[in-house]
C-alpha cells in the first residue's frame, strides 16, 4: 500500500461513506422512529424529544449531510468524474458516470432539503427561533414533507451510488 493519489481517492470515499451513514441513519431515525412515536408520548413528556433528543439528532444529521456532500464532491473530483457524473454521463457516454451521477444529483437535492428546508423550519418548530403558532404549523409541514421526500429519495440514491462500482455493466 502506498499513500499516493489513488489512496486519497479511497480515503475520501471512506469519509464520505461514514458521513452518509451518520446522515441517512438519523434521517431514517426521524422518519421510522421519532415521528411515528410522538403521538404515543404524553404531552408532558414530549419535551424529552423536542428539547433534548431532537436538537442533538438534528445537529449530527445536518453536519453529517454537509460532510457527506463535501467529501463526496472531493472524492468525485479526485477520481476525475465530477463533471461527467453531474452531466449524467452524457459527456463521456459512461454508464458508471450516469449511475453515480444520478446518485450525486439525488444526494445534492437531499442536501438542499436538509439545509434550506428542514433545518431552518425545524428551528421554528422546536422554538430555537421564536415564531407565532401559525408560522410554526406551516414550518412543521414543510419540514415534514422535506424529510419524507429525502426518505423517498434515499432509496434510489443508494441504489444508484452502489451500482456505479458494484453492478457489472
Amino acid at each position, binding site marked *: 500500500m502506498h499513500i499516493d493519489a489513488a489512496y486519497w481517492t479511497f480515503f475520501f470515499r471512506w469519509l464520505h461513506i461514514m458521513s452518509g451513514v451518520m446522515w441517512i441513519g438519523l434521517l431514517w431515525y426521524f422518519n421510522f422512529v421519532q*415521528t411515528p412515536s410522538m403521538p404515543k408520548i404524553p404531552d408532558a413528556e414530549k419535551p424529552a424529544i423536542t428539547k433534548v433528543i431532537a436538537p442533538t439528532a438534528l445537529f449530527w444529521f445536518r453536519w453529517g449531510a454537509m460532510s457527506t456532500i463535501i467529501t463526496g464532491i472531493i472524492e468525485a473530483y479526485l477520481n476525475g468524474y465530477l463533471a461527467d457524473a453531474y452531466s449524467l454521463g452524457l459527456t463521456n457516454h459512461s454508464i458508471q458516470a*450516469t449511475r453515480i451521477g444520478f446518485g450525486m444529483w439525488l444526494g445534492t437535492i437531499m442536501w438542499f432539503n436538509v439545509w434550506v428546508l428542514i433545518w431552518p423550519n425545524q428551528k421554528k418548530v422546536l422554538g430555537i427561533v421564536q415564531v407565532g403558532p401559525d408560522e410554526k404549523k406551516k414550518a412543521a409541514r414543510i419540514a415534514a414533507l422535506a424529510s*419524507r421526500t429525502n*426518505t423517498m429519495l434515499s432509496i434510489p440514491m443508494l441504489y*444508484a451510488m452502489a451500482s456505479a462500482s458494484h453492478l457489472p455493466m
Partner: protein
Amino acid sequence: MKNPLDSLRSTVVLGFVLTVVMVLIINAMYS
C-alpha cells in the same frame, strides 16, 4: 387528493418505484 408523503409506507413504496423508473431510464440511455 392525498399526499403520498403523508404516509411513511407510501413514501417508501414510492422510493422503490422511483428506483425502478431510474433503472429503466438508465437502461434506455445505454440500449
